[in-house]
């Protein structure tokens, strides 16, 4: 038996079509026979009428007409020929009786045959109809069980894969092509899972290779800086080394973060986020940098609801916003961090009195590696990853981020984080 669905469906439809055609053929033949029988009966009536006319007016013209009517029937023709020679004698009456009786018998015979055929056709048609319906029902149930349901199962699994569940497999059941589909689907899921594993391994390796030397640098620096006999100058130099090691570390973290996002591997932890506390921590962490830059950093907190999200990522997002603001604010400027509650969402605003961003560049600020001209011209360090990360984190939490800036006056970044969101988008 062929495992090819096209062949099978072809054969099945062929069988049904042949059955239906046969039923039609029988019906058409029966109708044809009925018509023939009717025509024959009408012919018999005409012959009988001709015989009667000849009986009443036994003229050679009447006999000629009768001969014309029965010319296809050799027996009747013979009778009419004899009738012509005995016209007017008592024999003629008997011959006419024989012609009438014979014609009636032929007609009835024909009609009986047609009736039998019609009965047979009816039986065959009903049988054929039942057979076709049964075949079609069989075909439909085959289609549902072996084609539609397996395909539907595979479609459902594909949707699960699309939402990130790579462990899903489909049973390799059904028939022909649906089985092929299930096998191909499972092979695809296997290779997806494998490539996902390789990606994970790659990130772990890269992260390990970059962080290991930084671990030594930062760890040994701490040891050295703990030495109280260190000269003031050496201490200052080493603090520069440490600050830059931290910067490198942050860059490594940012690059890996975005690489993971790019690879679709951003996974948010599901924790309770107390945004007020996270914001306060971020502001405190940024205070030494603010003091070093001579910028007045102020927090204007407000109670906001705790929501479900990734606490560390939220902290990273606020760190990025504050460190950006500090970078672009000249000494004696201000950076204000405002938190407020807007009913169904928390609003975080970081406002600086920095150089501002030209209108033309504002739209591109959330792009990776994009750096404002004010940043490049003032040689402000950075890789242009901060806001891209902010946007990624905020959107992963179902929120929005917007920026308003005026050149020479300053910039405000506004983040809205909804308290309720569909975690499914990231989990």
């Amino acid at each position, binding site marked *: 038996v062929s495992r090819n669905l096209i062949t099978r469906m072809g054969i099945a439809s062929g069988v049904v079509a042949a059955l239906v055609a046969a039923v039609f053929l029988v019906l058409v033949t029966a109708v044809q026979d009925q018509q023939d029988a009717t025509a024959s009966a009408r012919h018999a009536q005409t012959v009988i009428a001709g015989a009667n006319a000849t009986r009443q007016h036994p003229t050679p013209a009447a006999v000629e007409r009768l001969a014309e009517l029965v010319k296809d029937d050799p027996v009747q023709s013979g009778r009419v020929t004899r009738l012509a020679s005995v016209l007017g004698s008592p024999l003629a009456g008997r011959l006419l009786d024989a012609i009438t009786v014979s014609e009636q018998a032929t007609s009835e015979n024909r009609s009986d045959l047609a009736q039998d055929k019609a009965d047979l056709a009816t039986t065959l048609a009903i049988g054929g109809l039942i057979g076709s319906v049964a075949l079609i029902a069989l075909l439909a149930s085959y289609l549902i069980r072996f084609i539609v349901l397996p395909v539907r199962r595979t479609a459902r699994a594909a949707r699960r894969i699309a939402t990130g569940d790579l462990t899903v497999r489909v049973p390799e059941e059904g028939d022909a092509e649906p089985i092929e589909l299930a096998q191909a689907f499972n092979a695809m899921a296997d290779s997806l899972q494998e490539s996902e594993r390789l990606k994970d391994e790659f990130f*772990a390796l890269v992260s390990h290779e970059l962080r290991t030397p930084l671990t030594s640098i930062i760890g040994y620096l701490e040891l050295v800086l703990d030495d109280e006999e260190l000269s003031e100058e050496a201490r200052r130099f080493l603090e520069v080394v440490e600050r830059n090691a931290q910067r490198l570390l942050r860059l490594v973290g940012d690059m890996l973060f975005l690489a*993971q996002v790019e690879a679709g591997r951003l996974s948010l932890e599901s924790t309770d986020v107390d945004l007020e506390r996270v914001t306060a921590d971020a502001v405190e962490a940024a205070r030494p940098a603010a003091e070093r830059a001579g910028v007045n950093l102020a927090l204007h907190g407000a109670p906001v609801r705790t929501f479900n999200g990734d606490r560390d990522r939220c902290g990273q997002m606020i760190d990025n916003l504050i460190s950006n603001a500090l970078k672009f604010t000249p000494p004696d400027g201000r950076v204000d961090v405002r938190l407020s509650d807007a009913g169904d969402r928390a609003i975080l605003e970081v406002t600086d009195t920095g150089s501002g961003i030209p209108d033309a560049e504002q739209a591109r600020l959330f792009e990776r590696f994009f750096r404002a001209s004010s940043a490049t011209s003032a040689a402000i360090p950075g890789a242009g990853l901060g806001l891209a990360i902010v946007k990624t984190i905020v959107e992963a939490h179902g929120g929005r981020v917007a920026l308003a800036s005026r050149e020479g006056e300053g910039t405000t970044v506004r983040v809205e984080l909804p308290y309720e969101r569909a975690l499914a988008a990231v989990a």
Partner: protein
Amino acid sequence: VSRPVVLVADDDEDILALLVLRLERAGYEVVVAHDGREALAAAEAQPIDLAVIDVMMPELDGHEVVRRLRARPATAGIPILVLTAAAQEHVAEASAAAGADAHMRKPFSPKELVARLEELRA
């Protein structure tokens, strides 16, 4: 009073030396291992009171070492701190699942690491 013995396992020589230096300064006796197998062998060779294990090590990875330490009666209950340089968050969960008590990401502050160990011993 004898000094508490800490098993330190990391495949990076410099980090290992840093840990030894800092932990000895904090009053620990340090047993070192350069990979997972050495770590388990060291735990067999002498009684240890706590362990600092790196995750990404040759031979046996840190999580497996933690699992095997937990399986031995002598080390089943000791405080274990896991170090990792991985970027992924789920490494922390894996450490906890393996049976580690605490988890620190590299780079770590040696001072903080000592403080965490003190916390775990308390």
